[in-house]
């Protein structure tokens, strides 16, 4: 699943480390999420959307298989 985490993070002008600290995850998780190698759980997706102040569908781009 594609996402706009990197784009939203850059808009907010914060580092991966800051985002990781805010979400209580490791920086490696943020790197994997941004690289599209790992899909966030529902809980983390909510946390991300809440952090950026947008809806989940604005962070994650759902693609039908």
């Amino acid at each position, binding site marked *: 699943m594609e996402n706009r985490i990197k784009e939203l993070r850059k808009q907010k002008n914060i580092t991966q480390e800051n985002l*990781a600290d805010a979400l*209580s*995850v*490791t920086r490696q*998780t943020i790197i*994997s999420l941004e690289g599209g190698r790992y899909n*966030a*759980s529902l*809980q*983390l997706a909510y946390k991300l959307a809440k952090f950026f102040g947008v809806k989940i569908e604005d962070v994650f781009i759902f693609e039908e298989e």
Partner: protein
Amino acid sequence: MDYNKKIKQRIIISAVYAILGIAITISANIFGDKVNGGYLYSLGCAFTISGAALLVKFIRIKRSPELMRKFEVSARDERNIMIADKARVYAFGAYSIGAATAIIICSIFYMQREALIVALNLCALVLLYVLFSIILHKKY
């Protein structure tokens, strides 16, 4: 989950490992002639070294608030949990294939006793898998 409590538990477990390792090493030195002393000695050394290393690591984490925070984040991180789960699944698969290969090789070379031990081990593993699958299916 209280991670302070978790660290304390890990310190106790590491200490038990190290003490057990020392006890096994001493036993290997005393009873080495009667039992397979070499294996026992290696096992004792492995327990002592790994237990002591873990003990130092967890004591360091407990003393430093920054390391404690990192430990907590790392332990809760969902990607780390997923990786650990996947690693266990791969290990289970690799072990099963390895054990099955060992059974075949042992059978070819008429090592019936060894083949039986590995086969029983594999059966126990599969039975445990089925048992935990049933329990988890009921739980979720």
